[in-house]
């Protein structure tokens, strides 16, 4: 029996099809709204789950085995996602201050500080109450700070840490030694009795296979959506809009709603393309975007690019939940744990820098980009250590115009609108001159 966490208790609410029926065909921005509805429902499922006495596992976005959790009816909580949503709504400073008063440094990751801040406030946040963790699932893939974050919460809440150690991709041709896969698969197997004990329900392998199959389908659709970025003009912004679109694949993988959402999105993107509609009036510049966005100023940050009719055609960040277009993994219900392990290992930040640079190079070529924007954030060395070097490579060795800007993803104290605008404007002035030449 598969228990989708979103539908318990109560009903599912409008699925994509239901919504589609209500929306006139002319709407070209309905997927974003649907995403908002799904996100809201996800949050409501947390509260409903708390009321129903469900178990909560905190887990990370990059490389998590969410399908395994849902096979046990465990509700996953993604503090990264809750934090970014709080920050998007302007709620970061209070939570960050709460942890800095506890002694967390200004140099520590804003996510950790917000997450700890929320725990210190008993889960009270501007987007509602975040349930306490019963399990801290440490899927250590791509980010070392994941370990430290869960350690903080462990000492703060007493919740146990269950670890799935995912080795870094450390061969420069991208190969993964077989003992890495065995190790991850083995740990997932060890996790099963732990989860059985924590929930008191036996492992239902069939439920896992079903969830994996639904995930696979969603991944396939999402990949097709992302690849519409190769169209000229692109029907969507593969960074700023994708950041909305990525939430179902992050939160709801393994559910039918997730599959529906991407089917709906793919259709909308095709409709946009046919109608010649896109995220900006025109498509003057095609850019690749690398790095985590700035959530507290998300819209004005986007405006800096919109103003120049620049559209992002491909980017890395919206794929943190899975590098779906890199061909590095494909979920397979026939080998659920093995394919999950391959998925977990190939998280974006788990790639070494040679791999990351190679991927970006491919984007520039395949998506016919005019230039690249790199947004480094102070909070995240996993993403940002190497951004300076990526710029070197593209600007100097490949002659791809590249702009490196910096701020933070959740902490508004590191964003300076005027400085950002100055850099972005100068970049597009340069790009305009270059296009003229």
């Amino acid at each position, binding site marked *: 029996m598969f228990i989708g966490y979103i539908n318990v208790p109560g009903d599912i609410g409008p699925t994509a099809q239901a919504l589609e029926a209500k929306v006139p065909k002319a709407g070209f921005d309905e997927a974003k709204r649907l995403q908002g509805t799904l996100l809201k429902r996800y949050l409501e499922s947390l509260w409903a789950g708390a009321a129903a006495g469900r178990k909560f596992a905190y887990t990370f976005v990059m490389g998590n085995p969410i399908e395994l959790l849902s096979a046990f009816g465990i509700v996953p909580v993604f503090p990264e996602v809750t934090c970014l949503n709080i920050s998007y709504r302007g709620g970061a400073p209070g939570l960050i201050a709460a942890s800095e008063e*506890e*002694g*967390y*440094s200004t*140099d*520590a*990751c804003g996510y*950790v500080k917000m997450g700890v801040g929320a725990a210190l406030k008993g889960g009270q946040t501007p987007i509602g109450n975040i349930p306490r963790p019963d399990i801290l699932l*440490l899927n*250590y893939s791509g*980010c*070392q*700070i994941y*370990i*430290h*974050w869960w*350690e*903080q919460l462990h*000492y703060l809440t007493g919740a146990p*840490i269950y*670890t*799935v*150690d995912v*080795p*870094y991709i*450390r061969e*420069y041709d991208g190969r993964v*030694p077989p*003992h*890495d896969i*065995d*190790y991850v698969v*083995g*740990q997932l197997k*060890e996790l099963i009795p732990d989860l059985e004990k924590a929930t008191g329900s036996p492992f239902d392998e069939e439920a896992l296979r079903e969830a994996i199959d639904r995930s696979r389908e969603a991944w396939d659709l999402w990949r097709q959506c992302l690849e519409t970025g190769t169209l000229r003009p692109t029907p969507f912004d593969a960074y700023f809009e994708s950041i909305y679109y990525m939430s179902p694949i992050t939160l709801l993988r393994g559910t039918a709603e997730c599959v529906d959402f991407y089917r709906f999105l793919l259709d909308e993107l095709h409709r946009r393309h046919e109608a010649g509609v896109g995220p900006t009036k025109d498509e003057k510049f095609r850019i690749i975007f690398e790095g985590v966005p700035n959530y507290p100023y998300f819209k004005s940050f986007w405006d800096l690019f919109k103003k120049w009719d620049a559209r992002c055609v491909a980017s890395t960040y919206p794929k943190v939940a899975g590098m779906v277009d890199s061909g590095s993994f494909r979920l397979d219900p026939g080998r659920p744990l093995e394919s999950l392990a391959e998925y977990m290992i190939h998280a974006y*930040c788990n790639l*070494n*820098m*040679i*791999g*990351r*640079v190679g991927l970006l190079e491919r984007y520039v070529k395949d998506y016919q980009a005019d230039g690249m924007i790199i947004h*480094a954030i*102070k909070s*995240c*060395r*996993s993403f*940002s*250590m*190497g*951004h*300076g*070097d990526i710029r*070197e*490579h593209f600007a100097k060795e490949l002659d791809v115009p590249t702009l490196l800007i*910096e701020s933070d993803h959740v902490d508004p104290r590191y964003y300076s609108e005027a400085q950002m605008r100055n850099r972005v404007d100068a970049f597009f002035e340069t790009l305009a001159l270059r296009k003229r030449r």
Partner: protein
Amino acid sequence: MVFSAADAGSPTELFEAAVEDSYTRFDSVERWKAATGGRAVGYFPVYFPEELAYALGFLPVRIFGASGRVRLDQATSHTQSFICSIARSAFQLASEGALDVFDVLVFSNICDVARNLSGITKRNLPAKGIAYLHYPVNNTSPRALEYLREEYVRLARHLGELSGHDLELDRLRKAIALYNEKRDLVRKLAMLKQERPWLIPYTEFYAATRAGGILPVEDYIDALEDYLRAVQDRKAKPMDKIRVVVLGNFCEQAPLGLMKMIEDAGCYIVGDEALMGLSWLGQVPLDGDDAVRSLARTYVDNPTALTVRFHPAIDKQAYIVDQIREAGAQGAIFCTPKFCEPALYDYVIYKSALDKAKIPYMHAEYEESGSSFESVRTMVETFAESILFD
């Protein structure tokens, strides 16, 4: 000997020469290679299985960072300013060719910066041998041991391809025996510093320990034995200072001037993390098991907390309180490198344990290249005064 008699008369002089050499020059490594025909591996902190390198004909050398002795122009252009200094200076050294003497550089999963630095170095120096070890994090999993063993075998294959040696278990056992001896001596030195801190000024203690990260192990053992003998007989008198442990400086090294200032400002440093990676492993049992596995097991089972190694079974809070009490320290000074996230997170874990145990502590930041310690001095003096005069 890698230093001529002229530059290494006494053990202290040998240690100091070795430390000076380990910032930017590595001349002694060059000489060792020329004399022995061997190869050298440079490893980024914190821990490295030196035995494996030794058994394969390599001299293992720790990269400590340039501590302000090079201009960081290359590093500035390739890395952003919120990156810690040791990563920046290590990159600068690599791009200037100062690390050419090393046939291979090894990185590991101690933090995100070190992880990415491996690939950045590779991208800029494609011809350079770069290896990366993934130490298991799920150390309570029964699979962790075999996994690390596989990693060691993989590393050994990589090193062996360069040196033309195969890993021979006998040679590895010999290496383990030697490094066991080295770690034991380093531990004895640390115990002496803990029991009678007035005998050894920190700067001297530091040089004696750090030299073990660059000198060939046999030379180092001889010198350290001599040194320990000589130090025991010193006739220094204790002063009225507070006993502190210094925490957080396990990777990027604090400027020596800063550490000296802590002792000058009324403290005895009776324990610190600066070079713990060199002796942290402890004794590897040579009990007939596969020596590679023994080496791996000692890592996986090590009960000592290490900020850069997560071990699900270790209670860091209980650990730190025990450590401080065992060291007979009256307080803890957290010295964390600027932008070193791992140290900053453990600071919070540790400090809340210290609050509960009513152990006084203070916190200061440093950069390896730092040269001004005035504000830290004020804090340390206040800290010492507040403990001394209560």
